[in-house]
């Protein structure tokens, strides 16, 4: 049964693959060239980098929902991380970090040098996003990377619980984006995410900054929540 099923899946994949290749090779040239429209409207978008213009202005609504997806994944992880663990019980203090063993000292030294560099790079990428490759997400990924490195080097404990501060930090940037969107929708004659003339560049930078911080925290959360040790493996259910 299982073998037949596997074979079926493989055969279907091969058939679909052949069809896809044939169809793609047979494709006529497209009628609409959005790239031209992007270029034409780039001046009005507030930024000079077309990809950023699409991400935060022309299709900013997609981005609004996309960051929510990221956030929802974090919530989903939280429902798991804070279950079956003792961290929820009142009065629990995380154990102090153990003194670093010798082999981590190198890593810690590395981290102490690299992390400021990474934060700097993140800031640079955020700023660069307005006119060349880069932007909130890439910057946030670097920030998160810094967090991961600190954790690996034993300088930052894994997150066993999600405190109020982190909660606020992870949502504020997104909430700012949502509220900015709401403000644009509420403005007289305004539309959702239609930035007022002249304010686009400013607003995009503000939103990106907020997003960078929150997304950085969220992405770091992905790792730091996952790297928390399971209580001790004794919570196995049958």
């Amino acid at each position: 049964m299982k073998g037949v099923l596997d074979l079926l899946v493989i055969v279907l994949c091969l058939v679909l693959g052949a069809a896809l290749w044939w169809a793609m090779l047979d494709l006529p040239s497209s009628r609409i060239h959005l790239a031209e429209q992007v270029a034409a409207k780039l001046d009005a978008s507030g930024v000079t980098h077309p990809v950023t213009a699409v991400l935060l202005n022309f299709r900013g609504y997609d981005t609004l929902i996309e960051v929510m997806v990221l956030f929802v994944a974090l919530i989903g992880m939280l429902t798991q991380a804070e279950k079956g663990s003792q961290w929820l019980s009142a009065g629990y203090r995380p154990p102090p970090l153990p003194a670093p063993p010798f082999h981590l000292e190198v890593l810690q030294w590395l981290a102490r040098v690299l992390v400021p560099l990474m934060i700097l790079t993140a800031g640079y990428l955020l700023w660069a996003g307005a006119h060349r490759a880069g932007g909130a997400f890439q910057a946030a990924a670097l920030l998160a990377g810094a967090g991961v490195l600190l954790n690996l080097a034993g300088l930052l404990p894994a997150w066993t619980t999600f405190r109020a501060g982190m909660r606020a930090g992870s949502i504020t940037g997104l909430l700012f984006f949502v509220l900015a969107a709401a403000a644009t929708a509420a403005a007289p004659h305004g539309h959702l995410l239609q930035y007022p003339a002249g304010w686009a560049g400013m607003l995009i930078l503000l939103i990106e900054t907020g997003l960078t911080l929150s997304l950085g925290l969220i992405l770091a959360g992905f790792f730091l929540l996952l790297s928390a040790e399971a209580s001790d493996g004794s919570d196995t259910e049958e």
Partner: protein
Amino acid sequence: MRDPAPWLILFPLIWASLAFLRGQGRGGRLAVAGLTIQLVLAALLAEQIASDGARSYTVGGWGAPLGIDLYADGLAGVLLLLTQIVALPLVVYARAYFAIHPDGISYFWPLTGYLLAAMNALFLSADIFNIYVTLELLGLTAVGLVAAGGGAGPVGAALRYLLVTLLGSGAFLLGVALVYGTYGSMSLQVLTPLINADAPAAVFIAAGLMLVGLLLKTALFPFHFWLPPAHGGAPAPVSALLSALVVKASFYLILRLWLHAFAPLVTTVAAQLLGFLGMAAILWGSVMAIRQTRLKMLIAYSTVAQVGYLFLLFPLITDTNPAAAASALQGGVMQLVAHALAKAAMFAAAGTIILSIGRDDITRLGGVSTRLPLTLFTFALAGLTLAGLPPSGGFIAKWLLITGASGSDQWGWVVVMISGGLLSAAYVCRVLRQAFLSIEAGTKFSPVSRVLEWSAFLLASMSLLLGLRSTEVLGLLESE
């Protein structure tokens, strides 16, 4: 508000975020308040659609194809209204439910908010890539809600659900990529005439991929395997939300794409195939429901069967005479609405019963008829709708569908629909039968709050009264 459409998306986003800020288990009141406003907004939008016809809203002020458009026609209006109407009693129910049984409450409120935002956004979207993003938001929130139940069963079910939903949206996104590659646009409004004019092979493949992806998410047989454990294992308010609304979202997309953008591509063979899968779902789902020993699993399998009903629509609207197609479409939408109300009521009622007697075993329901009469009555009313008996909305739906089938001389589907109704009656009856027995020794009925009973009853009675007031729903549906 001139345009309620964007606010239907923004409001739940805002209250969900605030609920998250307030911390674990908090935010029930925010949800009730937010949903009340959303209900008003949805009613407002429906009113506008009914009087002025379909509405478009350009996000960012750019307009398609560069920007993203929101679009609300009668179908979207019906579903938006339905979503808020079903969700409001359910959040009231959920507050009372989690007050007694807090498992799974931790981030229930923010997740519910994002779920509703995703659904509203999905119903309003007129851009296939944007639809993909909303689908992902919807899928991940739903998975989070299922997983929050904890325990190996729900977590395993959630993970299976997650992988399926990712596979589904992956297929959908590949379809989007092919369509975008072919035409250079993602706006449905822009694409519709282009597809009408000329559709190369890639677009057919794209349509097929999108269809399969959405079928996976809608849990049509044989892609239903993930649904019963996920819906049956989650806390009752979550099961109700998922079974009543979430599977409908992807069905809505199939219907919309089938009717409009991809209308030139659809073939009778594909329609008949969907119909056959629907038939298989009805038979398989019903038989499995009859064989279940756990109450919530029975209801979950009933969802499998009822989803099958929705797909009987396609053979009736494809290449048939316009009158029959119109009737079938109305019937399909009525079935969707009636099932959403009834299934929400049914899961809520089951949740109340389980809370009260502390177990989920169909063979040991004796005494429910005397101790929880209102809840049992709710269950029975919901069952009435599922079985398509008058005066419920399900009856009107079945009437319209059968009219469509007989009008297009497809008598086979009539037999399927009729026997599907009988099978539903059989599994509903299995529960009622046990509930009418006398109390078993050792069963203790702990008292439950009246809010639990009445919010479920409200949903069930709406599914019933829908049968008498269906002209309003259909009137809204018709406004183009």
